[in-house]
């Protein structure tokens, strides 16, 4: 940790990131890992309860796979575009960063809208969260992921105007880096929701 002190002195008030940044990013990484544990417990709950449909329909009758494939590809693309925004950020291209994050935001919003549409559709047909243990576990798992996506979108709504106003300052660069880690992480969680809940659930 002491190696970064000279950098801080020499580069004070410049665009160099502050010495505390590596700790901040590491801390955020640890948070993401604990979030993985949260998802692991909800996945375990789902795996245990997935056959307890109380006589109701199982995933095979309920899930619309082509619809979910489109959702998956949208989220994957948004994760990729978010990565492109990081590249633009390292080159110091503020306009490109904002453009890429705007696309990421729109794709994230499209994903969330599709997920809510799916939930409303299921609930309207009488397959709400209170129908049986399988549906409760399903809404908890997919809904928690959706809640994370909504938080990511809210984060963008708050952070992007700050980037517009103050530019790519060290603080904003750090925040954008954390946001991109969060967004990539959500895409990784979705891979497993897609595989375990939708594909294996439709078996």
């Amino acid at each position, binding site marked *: 940790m002491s190696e970064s002190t000279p950098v801080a002195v020499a580069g004070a008030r410049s*665009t160099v990131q502050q010495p505390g940044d590596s700790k901040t990013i590491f801390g955020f*990484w640890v948070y993401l890992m604990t979030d993985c544990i949260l998802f*692991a417990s909800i996945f*375990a709950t789902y795996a*245990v309860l997935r056959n307890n449909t109380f006589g109701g329909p199982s995933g095979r009758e309920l899930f619309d796979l082509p619809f979910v494939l489109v959702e998956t590809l949208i989220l994957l*693309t948004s994760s990729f575009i978010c990565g*492109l925004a990081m590249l633009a950020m390292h080159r110091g291209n503020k306009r490109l960063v904002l453009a890429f994050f705007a696309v990421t935001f729109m794709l994230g919003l499209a994903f969330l809208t599709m997920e809510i549409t799916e939930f409303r559709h299921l609930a309207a047909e009488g397959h709400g969260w209170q129908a049986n243990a399988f549906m409760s576990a399903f809404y908890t798992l997919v809904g928690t992921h959706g809640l994370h996506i909504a938080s990511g979108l809210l984060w963008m709504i708050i952070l992007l105007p700050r980037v517009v106003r103050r530019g790519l300052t060290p603080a904003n660069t750090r925040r954008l880096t954390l946001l991109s880690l969060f967004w*990539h992480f959500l895409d990784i969680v979705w891979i497993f929701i*897609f595989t375990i809940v939708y*594909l294996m659930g439709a078996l």
Partner: protein
Amino acid sequence: MQEPKTTAVNRRHGAGQGTILSYTLGFILSVALTLAAYFTFTNRTLPDPLLISVIVGLAIAQLLVQLIFFLHLGKESRPRWNLLVFLFMLLVLIIVVFGSLWIMNNLDYNMMSPKETDEYIMKDEGIQR
């Protein structure tokens, strides 16, 4: 001016460093793996147990692709704290998920009605009455 400094600092963090090539490669591989899983599943040419192993294998492959190309795990400088925390998380995750499934399946087996339990045990152990 700011470019090399920011880059150097980020390389030390092990976060957010990549090239256009690595991101594009990661994206193409991820799309390919997603489509592979989807079409392997919808075609249903494989028997069920094999089908499950294949799509879980494809999901794990995609996890590795995204960890390496999007999150740049393992590319940080030493000591690799990010990787260490990730591996510890993986250990806890495996214990939580497989432990839950193991215990709950066992409970399920033991909590059936006495008649069902008898039938199951006789069938599983190959006991003839």
